[in-house]
């Protein structure tokens, strides 16, 4: 199993050097990749249908519980077949759809990356591995949604999708780690043995909530649904692949995978039924107001995902079987409708259903596929959708308690709207009179309409002969979710009963709704008025706010003026130091220990302070440099007074050198400009004096503290004995800490090289501007 995942990743890498070849001759190779994987997984079907599971374990970081554990059961096999099977069709279709696109190879690279990540996700048997693949699907879908990266809308949608799903991933990982901590294992198939421990744990609701947020964001449930219509900016093959069959179903997969581990409690059922139920009605009604074919499909997809969440929440045997079947039903007809939309868009340049009509006359095979898919979506007898719809009604009707009526009503309403939505996207553009503008349209090449037609035929085939897939779905897949015997034979004809009546009502009312409802700009605008209440609007407002806030913050803190940075850093340091000094209590001075003042010391200090004043006040550069040297010499004298002959010598030399260099290099510069206003200067003076005062106080406080002389005494006693030198400072520098001094010399040399090269550098004429 590992190799099937790696196969996709490796092919992605191969596309880097071979991209240009793929563009021209070798493009036929691309669909072969998913096709071979599809055949590989198809070979597993008989064994898995008979109840076996396959697993593969490879150690990765066993000490952290992260391993390459893969497991293939009915649920993951269904998803694997969907991913690779529909993937094959999509690759085949996109090969023609994107012909001549400059980023052709890159597109397939992303698509392969996504496919592999998705395969990894459904095969993972390790919580952390699952999360890694989960995030990989988010990231690769970001690239796919934003594929038309020169359009602002496209970039924005990609970012929204990534933000929402990424945020969900963040919650998901927290939930997964919590679950693993409770159960003591990261292995998903091992969690089932800890079911009781997990459910009875006090953190169970929290872990479940985090898991739900992860699933809801990925599967576009209210209130996180809005990224999905936005993601329709992606090229149509991407919408068909990611947003009908695979990525959005990842959340469903997650819920189904955790159903046997955490499901079946009130904490599980009510949130899922409420969120799923609300989402399906909300999105199904919304779909009726759309004019863009892709938007209709997006909203019906959200509604279908809501149905699946709802069924998983219901959690009865019937509901799980219905969910298993509906996953395949929806993937087949929705992928077909998306692909058809892509063809219509490609040929006519429009997706507006109020303008498109009569296209069956020019695009007959396409119209055929669309029609079958729409009928399957409507749940007409002899289509696969009919079986799916029946099972949903069975599930809602057979719920215990007072609920069946309400739940069935909700399902009925959703199905009616879904039917009308499916007709709007799949039938409306192909019937009626053909406008003149479209008369000259040609049927696109076979490679484009073959995929939707095959998928549509499958909708029909599985509907007429439910036995082909029914046993597998109701037995292997539903078993993997439900954890107990679920086998039932899917039938076309159940006899005259309530379910049939409900189907008939759905059909009649839905068709009427389709005929009456004419989407128009006005209605769209009327709905748009409610946007201010929608989660999308609120989140956009929030992100705008964050954006403005951060701009404001950046402009005030990081404004590009060095002095403003200095001011902020100094003020902050002052605040911290004042707080710390405040805590440390009053200043104490040990008068006995102070050395007495002499007149020449006072004289030197006065000279120093005078020079300091001149440095600050003088407008002349030369004066300030000379005053700096006066300050240096004064300090030098103090070193002389207080027994530091080496320091005095060094200070003297260095100060002289600095002054000479300053004058030599900078004498050409003009005198200082007075740029600051008196007010600014006053403010800076206060800040500066404050800092000086704080440092003085710190010095006073430290003076009061006793000083440890151990190290100094060691150096003093051993200077001659160990190092044969009598000047202790020299001995420390040259012997005890000799290596430090060596590196200091290196620093000096580097500076010297820098100075020399900067002085030698002559300006090129181009630099003189």
């Amino acid at each position, binding site marked *: 199993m590992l190799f099937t995942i790696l196969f996709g990743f490796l092919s992605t890498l191969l596309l880097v050097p071979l991209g240009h070849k793929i563009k021209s001759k070798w493009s036929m190779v691309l669909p072969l990749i998913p096709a071979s994987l599809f055949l590989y997984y198809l070979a597993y079907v008989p064994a898995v249908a008979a109840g076996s599971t396959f697993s593969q374990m490879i150690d990765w970081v066993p000490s952290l519980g992260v391993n390459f554990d893969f497991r293939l059961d009915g649920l993951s096999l269904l998803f694997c077949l969907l991913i690779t099977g529909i993937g094959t069709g999509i690759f085949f279709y996109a090969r023609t759809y994107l012909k001549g696109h400059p980023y052709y190879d890159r597109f397939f690279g992303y698509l392969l990356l996504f496919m592999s990540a998705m395969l990894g996700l459904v095969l993972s048997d390790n919580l952390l591995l699952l999360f890694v693949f989960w995030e990989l699907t988010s990231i690769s879908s970001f690239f796919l949604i934003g594929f038309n990266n020169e359009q602002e809308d496209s970039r924005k949608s990609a970012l929204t999708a990534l933000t929402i799903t990424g945020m969900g991933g963040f919650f998901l990982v927290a939930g997964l780690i919590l679950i693993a901590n409770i159960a003591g294992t990261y292995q998903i198939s091992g969690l089932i043995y800890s079911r009781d421990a997990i459910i009875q744990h006090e953190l169970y609701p929290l872990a479940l909530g985090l898991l739900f947020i992860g699933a809801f964001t990925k599967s576009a449930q209210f209130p996180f649904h809005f990224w999905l219509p936005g993601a329709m900016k992606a090229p149509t093959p991407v919408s068909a692949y990611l947003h009908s069959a695979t990525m959005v179903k990842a959340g469903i997969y997650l819920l189904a995978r955790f159903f046997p581990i955490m499901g079946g409690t009130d904490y599980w059922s009510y949130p899922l039924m409420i969120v799923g139920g609300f989402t399906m009605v909300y999105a199904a009604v919304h779909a009726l107001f759309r004019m863009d074919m892709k938007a209709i499909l997006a909203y019906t997809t959200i509604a279908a995902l809501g149905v699946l969440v709802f069924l998983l929440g219901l959690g009865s045997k019937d509901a799980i079987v219905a969910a298993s079947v509906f996953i395949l039903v929806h993937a087949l007809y929705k992928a077909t409708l998306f692909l058809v939309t892509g063809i219509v868009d490609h040929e006519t340049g429009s997706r507006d259903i109020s303008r498109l009509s009569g296209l069956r006359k020019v695009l007959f095979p396409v119209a055929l596929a669309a029609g079958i898919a729409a009928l399957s979506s409507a749940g007409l007898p002899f289509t696969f959708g009919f079986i799916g719809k029946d099972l949903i009604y069975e599930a809602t009707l057979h719920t215990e308690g007072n609920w069946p009526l309400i739940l069935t009503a909700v399902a009925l309403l959703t199905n009616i709207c879904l039917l009308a939505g499916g007709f709007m996207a799949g039938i409306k553009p192909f019937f009626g009179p053909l406008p003149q503008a479209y008369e000259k349209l040609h049927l696109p090449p076979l490679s484009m309409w073959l995929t939707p037609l095959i998928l549509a035929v499958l909708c029909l085939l599985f509907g007429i002969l439910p036995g082909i897939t029914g046993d597998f779905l109701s037995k292997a897949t539903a078993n993997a979710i439900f954890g107990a015997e679920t086998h039932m034979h899917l039938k076309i004809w159940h006899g005259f009963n309530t379910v049939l009546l409900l189907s008939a009502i759905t059909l009649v009312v839905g068709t009427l709704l389709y005929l009456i409802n004419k989407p128009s700009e006005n209605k769209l605008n009327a709905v748009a008025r409610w946007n201010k209440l929608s989660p999308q609007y609120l989140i956009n407002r929030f992100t705008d706010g964050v954006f403005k806030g951060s701009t404001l913050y950046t402009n005030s803190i990081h404004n590009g003026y060095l002095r403003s940075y200095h001011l902020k850093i100094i003020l902050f340091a002052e605040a911290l130091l004042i707080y710390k000094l405040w805590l440390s209590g009053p200043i104490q001075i040990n008068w006995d220990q102070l050395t007495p003042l002499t007149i020449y010391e006072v004289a030197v200090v006065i000279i120093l302070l005078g020079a300091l004043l001149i440095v600050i006040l003088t407008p002349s550069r030369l004066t300030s440099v000379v005053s700096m040297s006066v*300050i240096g010499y004064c300090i030098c004298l103090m070193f002389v007074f207080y*027994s530091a002959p080496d320091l005095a010598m060094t200070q003297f030399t260095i100060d002289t050198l600095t002054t000479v260099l300053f004058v030599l290099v900078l004498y050409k510069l003009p005198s200082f*400009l007075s740029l600051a206003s008196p007010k600014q200067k006053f403010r*800076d003076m206060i800040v500066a004096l404050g800092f000086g005062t704080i440092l003085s106080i710190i010095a006073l406080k430290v003076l009061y503290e006793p000083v440890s002389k151990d190290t*100094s005494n060691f150096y*003093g006693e051993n200077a001659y004995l160990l190092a044969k030198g*009598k*000047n202790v400072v020299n001995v420390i520098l040259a012997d005890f800490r000799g290596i430090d001094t060596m590196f200091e010399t290196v620093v*000096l040399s580097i*500076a010297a090289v820098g100075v020399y090269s900067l002085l030698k550098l002559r300006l090129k004429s181009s630099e003189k501007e």
Partner: protein
Amino acid sequence: MELLLVVVLGLLYAAGIFLILRRSMVKLLLGIMLLGNGTNILIFLLGTITKGKPPVIGPDQNVFQDIYADPIPQSLILTAIVISFALTAFAIVLLKRVYALVDSDDLDDLNTPEEEDL
């Protein structure tokens, strides 16, 4: 004398801070030098100052017979003086180079090319 040195180092710091808040690059450099001097005095002071007893062992002795000034702050300051010279020297030359390129001593003029690009 300690109290006087406390005042001196406080004022050196204050002057240094005031100068690095200016727009002129030369003043910025002078400010940094003043901060360095202030720090040297701070270290010197905190090592306790001693008058007339340099940490040098007498000509015919092997160990100190008398009290002596603390050699550690002195070696630290010596290092600091030398390193700050390296910094200053490099900064001075760099200043000259910047002046030759942008013909200004104003730090804000270094920001402008970016804005002109817009």
